[in-house]
């Protein structure tokens, strides 16, 4: 197995996903198959190859530091699951 249960648990936490105990085996099996296939990449010598993040040549894109119109607060909050006094509202973050 390329991916251990520990790896999967760790990635699930990073991803803010809970993987049910009964799904773990199936998940591990599928990930193993996919990552084993991807091992073909190691056949290639990429020692002197530069990585590509964007396919087309692109330099830093700047814009003027000008104030422009943006969404008003009401529109920006319109889709919020929970809001109060013009803010997004979330469950308790700090202990105690």
């Amino acid at each position, binding site marked *: 197995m390329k991916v251990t249960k520990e790896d*999967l648990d760790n990635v699930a936490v990073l*991803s*803010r996903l*809970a993987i049910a105990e009964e799904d773990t085996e199936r*998940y591990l099996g599928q990930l193993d198959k996919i990552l084993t296939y991807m091992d073909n990449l190691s056949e290639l010598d990429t020692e002197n190859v530069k990585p590509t993040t964007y396919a087309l040549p692109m330099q830093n894109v700047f814009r003027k530091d000008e104030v422009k119109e943006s969404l008003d607060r009401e529109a920006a909050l319109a889709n919020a699951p929970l809001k109060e006094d013009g803010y997004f509202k979330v*469950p308790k973050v700090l202990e105690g």
Partner: protein
Amino acid sequence: MRLYEKPAHVLHEMLVNKEITSVELTEDVLARIDEVEGEVKAYLTVTRDEALARAKAVDEKIARGEEISFLEGIPGAIKDNICTKGVRTTCASKILEHFVPPYDATVMTKLKAENPVILGKLNMDEFAMGGSTENSAYHPTCNPWNTECVPGGSSGGSAASVAAGTSIWALGSDTGGSIRQPASFCGVVGLKPTYGRVSRYGLVAYGSSLDQIGPLTRDVTDCAHILNVISGHDDMDSTSSEAAVPDFTKALVEDVKGLKIGLPKEYFVKGMDPEVEKAIRAAIEKYKEMGAEIVDISLPHTDYAISAYYLIAPAEAATNLQRYDGVSYGERVEGEDLVAMMTNTRTEKFGEEVKRRIVIGNYALSAGYYDAYYLKAMKVRTLVAEDYAKAFEQVDVILAPVAPTTAFKIGEMAGDPLQMYLQDACTVPLNLAGLPGISLPCGFSSKGMPIGMQIIGKALDEETIIRAAYTYEQSQDYHTKMAKLGGNN
């Protein structure tokens, strides 16, 4: 012949010549939706009243003797990952079930300036992850040519509606083939523009370095017209190209004399359906007859493109989809504290394939695996792009299959994600290299299913692929055939 069967350019002439009204046309397409949508299920939202109101306004404009634009009054529909102000945009995900965008995507702003009739929002694989539209959290879409088959994906609703006559044109998006493959499966034309040609502002992000919006249409003429409308630099998308946008309709010319067409041997592989290969070989012969020069080429890193793509796209997706945390928009599932709320929301509201790609992406990006997977994939991306650059020193365009088979049965690949990923071998390399590609019909299988071929161009050279596609299209009538559905035709 009903109005819904005609392409936009024919309908535009009929509107201009006052042979029809936009209300008549819109009512005919809405009637077609009533007739066949139960079988095809291409839509997630139909905006019937707004569509008819728009059609009426266009008719009043025509009655006043005003000129109309190409798309004015012509009904089309939009993939549900493109933000439409005031109209629900779900990405076919439960997590955005009630999301109503407070703004329009740039492509919508550009479209609305042309005043088309917008019929609604189209089904897709959840967050554009998939090649069959089976990953929609709402319902699968069926292929109009055989409703037991998938329409392809992820823009399956877009391709199926254009093929079924429930829209005249549609917008889709293509991250690894999501316009071209469903276009091929449904017998319509689909174009993925060069990366940066069309603004991604307001397109719900999947793989930001790969995503492009493009048209799905009945024929190449409509495709060129819609590309004219949606292309161009946008300050709101810093990756959008500043290159000048030509008039793509000027490329609608029947001429491939001396055009050098490359055939990459790696794209004609074992496991390809012989009927698909036969149709594509026949198209190649046709090009020869019409004066094109066929050149055998090699794109040696093709076999590695799938691996690179299925690491890069999930890594970008894992990052982009962090925003669905139950806080600022989208659904929320309560939990005892903040992290529990976020975890519950994502676990319950994301579908299986979306979760799988987030896990793969975060795995490839995590400490200890970053170099072996993500960095390696980005280096291989360079090699894939260099293959094309070398090939384009010898040829003007590249001709290839879109998919190894015609549309497969719904459920046929369920439970085997790797097999599903391998279907994308001919489409993902373009996205890695940022190149434009057009899929157009080139035949039918013995079971009557459409077969498509793909013409790939140099960066920012959509004109040459449009010219090559148009020239072939004029030599046959595959694009004029409509699926038999609902007892019509």
